[in-house]
């Protein structure tokens, strides 16, 4: 057998043809049994060869291992079997060297067939080897079946035991003489094939039972033929002809969506769900709808800025068997991506811009604003200290310039009047208009906010120069404006419109001269005790003091007509007043320049005229003056009652003087002159009873009567060519606003000025007056 195997090794070249089939991947498993057999036999032979070679190689170094017993005798075990080198036994060894077998075959095939492609991987070989082993194991079994010869078995068994070294047989004489008993025993039966029988012999015990069963079955089959119990029925199902159909779908685009559910997310969806969702409740008592809400508030829209995405979340019920189940649809945040144009034009954007502008300016003006608001000025740690700060450390009171309200719109315009808003102390209205007749141009009213010193909050353009301003106390956003052409307009500073709410153009008897002062007086409330609203009082160059009210437009009635009094008549005091009226005069009236209502008693007011006279009048009596104070030689530009002392008032005029009066004295108590220029504006300080400020053509003066009644305490000279025309004290802080003819409104802080307001000041003022009067007498 092995010889045949050897012989068959030669036609191993034939395997190349078979091996070509192995090129097909699936063809390996269809390799014929014979081919595998031949291959396996070849493998056997090859391994056998190798085995033999191994054995021969093993035999030669046999001498190295030697075992000796205590007596020094060599008792190295000798191999019991000496194989014939020519005989090839390799069958059983195959079981243990299957891998080698397969590898050997593979390598053989590879060497024989160069066309065997490289792409076969090792795992492939492994699979091949696995299949081969299975085949080869079978063939081994076949082989052993064929060769059921004890001799071969024993030889194979000895092979199994491994290489056994040949042992030198030490033939001892006593062993040869002794009789050796040999016992032969039968091994147990090796079952190699067991096919159970389907037929039973007639002699066995079961035969009877089997026969009976067979007979019964035959009878059953016979009975079936014509029996009603059994019906034969056959069916055939038609197998439809299969047809292949191909469908291709678009690739499903996957979008990852994630949400971090936070407190506000849930709040948002809850709120918007309440507002816009229509809830239709399923009424079958099914399980409650499970809300699936997803909010896309800040998810970037991948579709592009112009498309609108609407996110609809549908609630799904757990069991939707009923057809009447209604679906709840919560439309969340229908987002429309506005394009950039819409953003830039939106009102919110304008508002944000305005806020941002204020913030930026606040950063720039922070030290100034802090000084204004009497907050401690914190130095910016990043800002370098300039040398200026160290120089300006004096003890004298002085005016520190903080900033100036100015912009290109107001350049070159003369500031004629300023007024604080009654409700918001940060808002300032400034009116621009020329005083002279010659250089009249269109007027401007600008509302400035302290938070933005660089650009006014509101700008109103007027046809003619603005000469008077006043904010209403009732309706804080109403601003009354008196103009050079005699008209009066009321603006709403909160609206975005440029036109006034109402103006006096429809009124029949409007002023024919420039309106020099307007004021809101809360007279009705004082009289009747109810809130009836304010009335607007104005005085103008046509000699009328008028009260304005709203009927079908602004209408006015005259409170007083300022009649001219002949100056000459004063020198020749006549007992009879009536004779004065017979004098021929060009005009009965004299221009009214200013007026002021008594702070406590709104029935009394003072009016100053262009002639220099101050008349005390009553609100309810418009025929005659109560009193006349004559001292000024020029037009009286301003009259103010003292806010602390009820009887004292100040007046300034173009004759370079300021007079301090007491109500009951027809002559001024004190007179102040310092410059040689007309004094345009004066104002009492709202904090201190003895302090007042005055502006004349080139100077700003702050007088403190405690310190001196002859000289102003602070004198600040304006730049040459610039006339200071308006003065305003700030109601809360110790700052002064000065408007000039260049259109700037400068804010000054009174430094080193002890202006503590207390009753002491009023007493001081009284004392000064008393002492002055005493000194007169």
């Amino acid at each position, binding site marked *: 057998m092995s010889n045949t195997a050897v012989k068959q090794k030669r036609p191993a070249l034939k395997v190349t043809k078979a091996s070509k089939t192995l090129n097909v991947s699936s063809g390996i498993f269809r390799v014929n049994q014979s081919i595998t057999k031949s291959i396996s036999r070849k493998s056997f032979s090859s391994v056998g060869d190798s085995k033999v070679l191994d054995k021969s190689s093993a035999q030669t170094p046999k001498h190295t291992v030697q075992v000796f017993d205590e007596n020094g005798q060599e008792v190295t075990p000798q191999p019991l079997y000496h194989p014939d080198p020519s005989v090839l036994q390799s069958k059983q060894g195959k079981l243990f060297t299957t891998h080698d077998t397969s590898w050997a075959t593979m390598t053989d095939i590879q060497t024989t067939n160069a066309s065997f492609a490289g792409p076969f991987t090792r795992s492939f070989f492994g699979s091949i080897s696995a299949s081969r082993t299975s085949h080869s194991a079978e063939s081994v079994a076949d082989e052993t079946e064929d060769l059921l010869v004890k001799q071969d078995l024993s030889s194979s068994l000895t092979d199994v035991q491994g290489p056994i070294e040949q042992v030198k047989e030490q033939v001892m004489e006593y062993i040869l003489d002794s009789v050796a008993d040999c016992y032969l025993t039968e091994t147990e039966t090796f079952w190699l094939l067991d096919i159970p029988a389907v037929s039973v012999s007639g002699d066995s015990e079961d035969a009877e039972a089997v026969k009976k069963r067979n007979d019964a079955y035959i009878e059953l089959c016979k009975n079936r033929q014509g029996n009603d119990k059994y019906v034969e029925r056959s069916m055939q199902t038609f197998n439809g002809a299969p047809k292949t159909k191909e469908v291709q779908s678009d690739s499903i685009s996957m979008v990852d969506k994630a949400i971090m559910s*936070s*407190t*506000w997310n*849930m*709040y*948002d969806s809850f709120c918007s769900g309440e507002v816009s969702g229509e809830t239709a409740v399923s009424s079958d008592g099914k399980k409650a709808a499970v809300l699936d809400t997803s909010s896309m508030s*800040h998810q*970037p*829209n991948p579709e592009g*800025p112009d498309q609108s995405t609407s996110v609809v979340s549908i609630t799904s019920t757990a069991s939707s068997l009923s057809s009447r189940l209604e679906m709840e649809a919560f439309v969340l945040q229908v987002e429309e*991506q*506005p394009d*950039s144009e*819409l*953003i*830039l*034009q*939106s009102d*919110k*954007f*304008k508002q*944000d*811009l*305005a*806020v*941002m*502008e204020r*913030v*930026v*300016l606040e*950063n*720039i003006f*922070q030290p100034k604003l802090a000084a204004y608001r009497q907050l401690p000025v914190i130095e*910016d740690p*990043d*800002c*370098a200290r300039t040398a200026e700060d160290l120089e300006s450390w004096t003890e004298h009171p002085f005016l520190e310039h903080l900033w100036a309200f100015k912009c290109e719109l107001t350049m070159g315009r003369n500031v004629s009047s300023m007024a604080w808003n009654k409700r918001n102390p940060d808002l300032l209205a400034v009116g621009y208009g020329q005083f002279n007749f010659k250089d009249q141009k269109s007027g401007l009213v600008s509302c400035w906010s302290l938070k933005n010193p*660089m*650009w006014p909050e509101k700008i109103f353009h007027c046809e003619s120069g603005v000469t008077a301003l006043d904010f209403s106390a009732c309706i804080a956003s109403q601003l009354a404006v008196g103009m050079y052409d005699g008209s009066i307009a009321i603006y709403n500073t909160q609206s975005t419109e440029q036109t006034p709410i109402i103006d006096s153009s429809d009124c029949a008897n409007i002023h024919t001269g420039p309106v020099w002062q307007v004021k809101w007086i809360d007279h009705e409330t004082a009289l009747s005790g109810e809130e009836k609203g304010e009335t607007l009082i104005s005085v103008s160059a046509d000699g009328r003091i008028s009260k304005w009210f709203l009927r079908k437009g602004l209408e006015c009635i005259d409170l007083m007509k300022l009649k001219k009094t002949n100056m000459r008549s004063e020198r020749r005091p006549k007992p009879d007043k009536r004779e004065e009226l017979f004098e021929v005069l060009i005009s009965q009236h004299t221009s009214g320049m200013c007026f002021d209502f008594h702070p406590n008693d709104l029935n009394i007011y003072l009016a100053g005229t262009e002639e220099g006279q101050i008349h005390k009048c009553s609100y309810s009596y418009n025929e005659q003056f109560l009193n006349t104070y004559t001292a000024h030689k020029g037009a009286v530009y301003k009259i103010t009652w003292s806010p602390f002392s009820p009887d004292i008032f100040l007046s300034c005029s173009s004759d370079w003087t300021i007079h301090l009066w007491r109500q009951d004295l027809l002559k001024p108590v004190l007179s102040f002159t310092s410059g040689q220029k007309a004094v345009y504006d004066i104002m009492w300080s709202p904090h201190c009873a003895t302090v007042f400020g005055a502006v004349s053509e080139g100077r700003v003066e702050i007088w403190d009567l405690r310190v001196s009644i002859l000289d102003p305490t602070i004198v600040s000279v304006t730049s040459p060519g610039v006339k200071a025309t308006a003065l305003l004290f700030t109601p809360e802080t110790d700052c002064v606003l000065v408007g000039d003819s260049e259109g700037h409104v400068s804010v000054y802080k009174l430094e080193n000025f002890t202006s503590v307001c207390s009753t002491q000041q009023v007493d001081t003022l009284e004392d000064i007056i008393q002492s002055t009067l005493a000194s007169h007498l």
Partner: protein
Amino acid sequence: MQKNMILCQQTNISRDFKELRCRKKEAEVEETLKRIQSQKGVQGIIIVNAEGIPIKSTLDNLSTVQYAANIQQLLMKARSMVRDIDPQNDLTFLRVRSKKNEIMIAPDKDYFLIVIQNPTE
């Protein structure tokens, strides 16, 4: 026929008014932006839309993109923080003061406005 003509004229007029108003608004916005830009120390203004794409900027492209991206993330975090504490509250303004400058951010649903200023210049 005349009625139709009058109607056409009226719609034209209303459309013109709308355009005028739009242009007026644009002009106002432009003016305000210019004023802010001209203030002392203002280094740049950036307007970014809700997606994080800058619409308008006075800085160069690279800086604009950097600012927009980083500030958007910060804004989301800040807003989330404010609303987490009280869901009825919302972020209205954010200021980041650094050594060299100050970044002021006015956020909104559709956009956010960034102004970078160095007030001590």
